[in-house]
């Protein structure tokens, strides 16, 4: 279909300016590459509890985010992830202080009054001695989780989530659109709520507090509903959901492949997880996966959608992915070769040292900051 045939009816006049290339071609990195890089750094973080290495990992990802983050609404989520990571850190430490920990320790930092608990709560302790060893253990442990969170935040800030969803196979396209629309609705909802709270102030009612928020709830939802109806109308009028004619045989094959494939995946997983299914588990799982993928691919025939300028998976995408995977692989290797350096002792308490070659390996993760294009600077246009 299409293939340029549709361009015939109306073409731009000869006098129209020739399509000029913009100042610079779009050179965005494939969003999948950013996610793989960030998840690989996160994997690396799970291999170690050395706070120095973890701090180095956080610094590495933060540096890349700072230099390569585009100026777009979605990229502001990094701050939220950093705050979340800090909250995890503090909560973990607070638990270690209040509930104590099974880590034996000799360096008492402070002693809290212990709350006597009844017999049935045996094994739980409230208050009591807080040792430096327990604190250090909790800190290392929490730092690992916090690093993982910050790495995920980096992926969120660097890669446009809707472009990532655009890379979905054709059959899943409609699902992707639903997610994208939902993603863009959240900021609209917040803006609506702010506007309506301001309007409460204009009516002479207090605009702060929970009551103010509750009262605007209904109008906000009403507005969101109206907006989604308007959007649905606009999307319909722009051709969303047009389908191609598919012969019934293909339709039936698609359904059979997808359903059979999913059943196969379920059976295979069950087989893998149960003791006696060791023999048939893997082959059934693989066959199921293949059938499901074939179904998806065949289902893609029903949508006549084409894709505008998909992000190419180019050499840079390989480099970025490879740099992340290298960090993860080298730290995994280091964890098996030199566990002492990557998991500094807590009992007895020793100061962690920075193992040299694993640290150098983490620095490979900085590569994207040099091989990817700098984001274009955009300033906000005045809006009413």
């Amino acid at each position, binding site marked *: *279909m*299409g*293939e*340029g045939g*549709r*361009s015939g*009816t*109306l073409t*731009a*006049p000869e*006098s*129209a*300016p020739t*399509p*000029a290339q*913009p100042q610079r071609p*779009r050179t965005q990195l494939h969003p999948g590459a950013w996610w793989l890089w960030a998840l690989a750094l996160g994997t690396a973080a799970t291999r170690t509890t050395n706070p120095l290495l973890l701090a180095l990992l956080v610094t590495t990802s933060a540096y890349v985010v700072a230099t390569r983050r585009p100026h*777009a*609404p979605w990229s502001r989520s990094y701050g939220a992830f950093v705050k979340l990571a800090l909250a995890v850190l503090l909560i973990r430490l607070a638990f270690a202080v209040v509930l104590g920990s099974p880590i034996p320790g000799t360096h008492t930092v402070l002693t809290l009054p212990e709350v006597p608990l009844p017999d049935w709560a045996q094994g739980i302790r409230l208050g009591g001695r807080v040792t430096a060893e327990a604190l250090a253990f909790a800190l290392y442990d929490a730092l690992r989780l916090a690093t993982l969170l910050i790495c995920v935040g980096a992926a969120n800030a660097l890669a446009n989530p809707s472009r990532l969803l655009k890379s979905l196979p054709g059959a899943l396209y409609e699902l992707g*659109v639903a997610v*994208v*629309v939902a993603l*863009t609705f959240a900021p609209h909802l917040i803006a609506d709520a702010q*506007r309506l709270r*301001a*309007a*409460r*102030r*204009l*009516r*002479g*009612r*207090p605009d702060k507090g929970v009551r103010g928020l509750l*009262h605007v709830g209904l*109008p906000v939802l009403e507005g969101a509903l109206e*907006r989604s109806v*308007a*959007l649905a*109308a*606009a*999307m*319909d*009028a*722009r*051709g*969303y*959901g*047009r389908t191609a004619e598919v012969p019934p045989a293909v339709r039936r094959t698609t359904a059979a492949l997808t359903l059979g494939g999913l059943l196969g995946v379920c059976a295979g997983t069950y087989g893998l997880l149960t003791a006696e299914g060791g023999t048939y588990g893997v082959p059934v799982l693989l066959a199921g996966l293949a059938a499901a993928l074939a179904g998806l691919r065949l289902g893609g025939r029903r949508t*006549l*959608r*084409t*894709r*505008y*300028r998909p992000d190419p998976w180019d050499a840079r995408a390989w480099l970025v992915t490879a740099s992340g995977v290298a960090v993860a692989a080298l730290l995994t290797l280091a964890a098996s070769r030199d566990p002492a350096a990557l998991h500094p002792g807590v009992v007895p308490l020793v100061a962690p040292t920075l193992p040299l070659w694993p640290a150098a390996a983490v620095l490979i993760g900085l590569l994207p900051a040099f091989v990817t294009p700098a984001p274009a600077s*955009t300033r*906000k*246009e*005045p*809006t*009413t």
Partner: protein
Amino acid sequence: MIRFENVSVTYDGVPEPAVHDVDFEVPEGELVLLVGPSGVGKSTILGAVSGLVPHFTGGTLHGRVTVAGRDTRTHKPRELADVVGTVGQDPLSHFVTDTVEDELAYGMESLGLAPDVMRRRVEETLDLLGLADLRHRPISTLSGGQQQRVAIGSVLTPHPRVLVLDEPTSALDPVAAEEVLAVLQRLVHDLGTTVLMAEHRLERVIQYADQVALLPGPGERPWLGTPAEVMAVSPVYPPVVDLGRLADWSPLPLTVRDARRKAAPLRTRLAHHEPPQQHDPTPPPPTRRLFKRTKPDHAMTTAPVAEVRSLAVRRDRVQALRDVDLTVTPGETIALMGRNGAGKSTLLSALVGLVAPASGSVRTGDAIPHRTRPRDLVRRVGLVPQEPRDLLYADTVAAECAAADRDAEAPPGTCRALLTELLPSVADDTHPRDLSEGQRLTLALAVVLTARPPLLLLDEPTRGLDYAAKARLVKILRGLASEGHAIVMATHDVELAAELAHRVVLLAEGEVIADGPSAEVVVASPSFAPQVAKILAPQHWLTVSQVREALR
């Protein structure tokens, strides 16, 4: 290209048809303007072209609508997507993706065009609409005019043969509106696109129309004719037509240029009349203050109701206002004008304490707005926001009025009495949502006025109002001003400013660039001058009613 054959549309649960017996044809390559008062079914007719009526809205459509030979009864909107492009009133509710380039490509992706065709058309459209510099920008960071152009571009890329637009310029400042209309004209002239467009602000669009379809009233048959024919009898008309009818010009001029050619005799007749000065309650400033900042140098005869001193406001890391001075005296009407995003709304928000100043000071009466409790502030200053519906929470008009009395601690019945005075026809049990745009604005106005604030602020009050509703609003606001209310309104509507304002304050990039009597400021600026001023320049007439007065 578009054929309506005896079309009537009846929505579910409504006894009367929204449009009745519509029968006309829009020929290929013409720009047809759909005009008429509010509520005559303009949007219904536009929706019927794209198939959204009745496939999406529900209701029953009798008769037949064909677009490029396709019957909308058998074709769903998505199956018409390659021949009809539709842009609604609010561009923001139209966008599916988040950047300009992706938005332009979206429609083509749905139609399954080949990647190289898509690429070429996106580039062409970027150039055609002057969007090339904005191609990678997130849509939410664009200004109103830019968003409207992106919305038009996004339906242009599939090369529809018909373009349907519902009030494309109502939210735009005069300059941005001209940009959008220039693009439309180019499409019609260069690409042969057929355009069907509804618009209330006829003074902006009438000169671009090849034909005008007039819907004189609800349920009446539309009438298609040349713009001059239709304008001679239409109940809605721009000031240039009003002036032409007054001076008995024939054929009726539709553009300022045509009118100027005919206006020489009128100018001589008016030469020995003095245009009435808009009654200014304060002594006029002694020196010409155009393009100078206001200085509070002249002696105040009365205490100002609001005073702004070197105000600066930052919003989202953007300097929204810098070094703004403004003094508002009782009984004075001020129009705040300027581009979309020049800081008009921010200045109004600062006056009601919705935003805190970064530096400088704001006082309304004896209060500092952002530090005053809302309950006390409503008695000093009231704002009718851009979307009056934001102010209304209740299910019925009566409940809304009762709530307003409680909020303002006014005796019960105050708000309802005000509303009856402003809008006699509205029933107590109507839901605010079912009111027309103009009625809703009036209800919000009554709610705000219940607390009797000496300072009344209005943000874009004429957006979506037809000429009749606008005339009613002008009358109401004149009455309030003569009672001593000070009024500050942010508006793109130059005709409204000319009718009402004693003073015009022009803002650009958050700074005051002009502040002076309306006649001086608007006449000096080509984009903000009302049509009558352009026609009768160099004489300083601003409105048709002034001329009518003088000729009597």
